[in-house]
């Protein structure tokens, strides 16, 4: 691995191409990023009842998240402490125990070891079951969004989200909050996990070009972007948080990628809700509530607020990911509207989606060009809008005009380099420090 100041240069504007290809970089990411960050697991709405569980991965580690009798959550490794086999092969369900199919060790929904066959006869009643529970993972929820971390020294989830939490509240604080609808779609892309993360955090640029065919047939208020002929930089902005999260917002475009009747119904819902939302989150964030967002919560959880797609890019080696896609809706929406939005999400950003299929090709090819040794010696460029960022009172983080920008993408790579340096949490940048230094 090259020195970090070569891998990411010029405040995030230059990336060494090896970071999308080399296995040693990937293994370092697993250690310094995926074993340390808060990673998205699931949503409260998916596992509401005692014994409900979902199996997912954190990096490449297989984990179980389960609802406890007292309503709290626990997460633990899906790997038997006897010989390492998985203890759960279902992706979700409701259960009282997880039984390993190898020797029958049985674990409770809290991950504790309950029963060991032949405990008396073969173990002479001497086995310490309390020391052999499934490895526990720190778990926390932010307004229904459930995250886990392997790092005991990681800051609390809200602090990890930093300034992003304030923006997320624009739609998380609506009456009733939000929910995710599953079961999720799952597919694979032969790309590095950072390619889709950077696309969602701040690539407004590609929308008018890569998605030209979809914009042409779907119409809507973004259709004028087709072919990148027209664009008003005052139509939105980008935000980058020092914690690595970020997003682009397009004003008054919440339903822009829902063509036809679902878009009309969704816009009506938002118009109707806006006064109540304004009461709760204030005028500034009502504007975000009515905007379309493309966002990433560092490192690999991305969503499009407005288009209602919510995704996790699960790394599966340096050149491969698994894509998990849910639909994000407001809990209090009528079922009819939720169903329309769910269907639209599948039509646009589902596995057979008319926009998703454009992106997949680009992500894969941006990774795979770096197979070439000589190609890989070079760098790629994210300089759009650099030098035009600012801090603005009342808006956490770094602000830049225009949703076609690369401000939030550079921020993601600055955080990536910071985390890869192995610095302790106390020495990593925060929104609070940025504000104090202003």
């Amino acid at each position: 691995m090259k020195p970090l100041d070569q891998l990411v240069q010029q405040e995030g504007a230059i990336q060494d191409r090896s970071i999308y290809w080399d296995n040693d970089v990937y293994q370092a990411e697993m250690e310094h990023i995926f074993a340390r960050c808060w990673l998205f697991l699931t949503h409260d709405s998916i596992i509401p009842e005692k014994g409900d569980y979902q199996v997912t991965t954190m990096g490449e580690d297989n984990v179980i998240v389960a609802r406890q009798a007292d309503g709290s959550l626990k997460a633990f490794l899906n790997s038997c402490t006897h010989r390492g086999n998985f203890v759960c092969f279902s992706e979700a369900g409701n259960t009282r125990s997880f039984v390993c199919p190898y020797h029958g060790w049985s674990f409770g929904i809290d991950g504790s070891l309950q029963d060991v066959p032949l405990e008396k006869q073969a173990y002479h009643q001497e086995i310490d079951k309390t020391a052999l529970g499934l490895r526990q993972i720190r778990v926390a929820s932010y307004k229904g969004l459930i995250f886990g971390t392997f790092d005991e020294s990681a800051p609390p989830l809200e602090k990890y989200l930093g300034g992003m939490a304030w923006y997320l509240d624009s739609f998380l604080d609506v009456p009733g909050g939000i929910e995710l609808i599953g079961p999720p779609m799952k597919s694979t892309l032969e790309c590095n996990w950072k390619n889709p993360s950077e696309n969602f955090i701040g690539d407004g640029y590609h929308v008018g070009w890569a998605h030209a065919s979809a914009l042409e047939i779907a119409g809507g208020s973004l259709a004028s972007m087709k072919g990148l002929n027209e664009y008003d930089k005052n139509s939105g902005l980008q935000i980058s948080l020092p914690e690595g999260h970020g997003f682009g917002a397009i004003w008054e475009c919440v339903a822009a990628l829902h063509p036809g009747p679902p878009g009309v119904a969704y816009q009506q819902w938002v118009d109707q809700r806006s006064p109540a939302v304004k009461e709760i989150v204030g005028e500034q964030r009502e504007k975000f509530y009515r905007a379309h967002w493309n966002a990433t919560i560092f490192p690999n959880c991305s969503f499009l607020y407005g288009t209602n797609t919510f995704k996790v890019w699960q790394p599966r080696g340096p050149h491969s990911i698994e894509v998990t896609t849910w639909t994000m809706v407001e809990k209090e929406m009528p079922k009819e509207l939720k169903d329309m939005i769910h269907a639209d999400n599948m039509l646009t950003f589902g596995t057979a989606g008319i926009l998703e299929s454009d992106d997949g090709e680009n992500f894969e090819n941006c990774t795979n060009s770096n197979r070439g040794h000589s190609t890989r010696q070079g760098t790629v460029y994210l300089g759009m809008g650099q030098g035009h960022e600012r801090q603005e009172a009342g808006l956490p983080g770094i602000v830049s005009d225009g949703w076609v920008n690369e401000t939030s993408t550079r921020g993601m790579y600055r955080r990536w380099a910071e985390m890869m340096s192995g610095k302790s949490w106390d020495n990593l940048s925060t929104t609070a420090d940025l504000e104090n230094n202003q």
Partner: protein
Amino acid sequence: MNSEEHSALSGQPVDQATHFEIERFLVREARALDEERYHDWLDNMVAKDVIYQLPTQEVRYRRDRKTIGNAQTTYLYNDNYDVLAMRVARFDTGFLWAEDPPMRIRRYITNIDAQWADEEGEVDVWSNFIVYRSRAQRDNVSTHGRRRDRLRKTDGQWQLASRVITLEQRVIMDKNVHCFF
């Protein structure tokens, strides 16, 4: 055939001549799609009230099938005629970079089993498929699955009235399934 005679047939295997027609229809449909004749397919082989679905299948234990939380069926395709037409229109825009150079697709339709449906002039048809897609130089993927179709004979021509596609993969081992099965 009166309605009584028809209901006695419902669920019975179709006769040899009908089976032959059905099989020919499915093969012709596959060739139209292989040859990117999407308008031919929509105009001549698909009923205007078609329902075209591809639901995802969760991997669950046999003993625990109950839906948890707010889960519902997630469809990769849940299209009516207009949505299918929109997907086809996208091919016509000239901006579909992923299909240029063109993708090469071959559909293999097999295990065809047809029986009379509960509606007169309609049949339920089960078939298995392999769809092979090749893109660019070395990007090759085969997708396997099953279809349950409802075909309807209108003016002497069979048309697709509904299709429910099942893919056996839970995690789709491809970048998308943006092709007709």
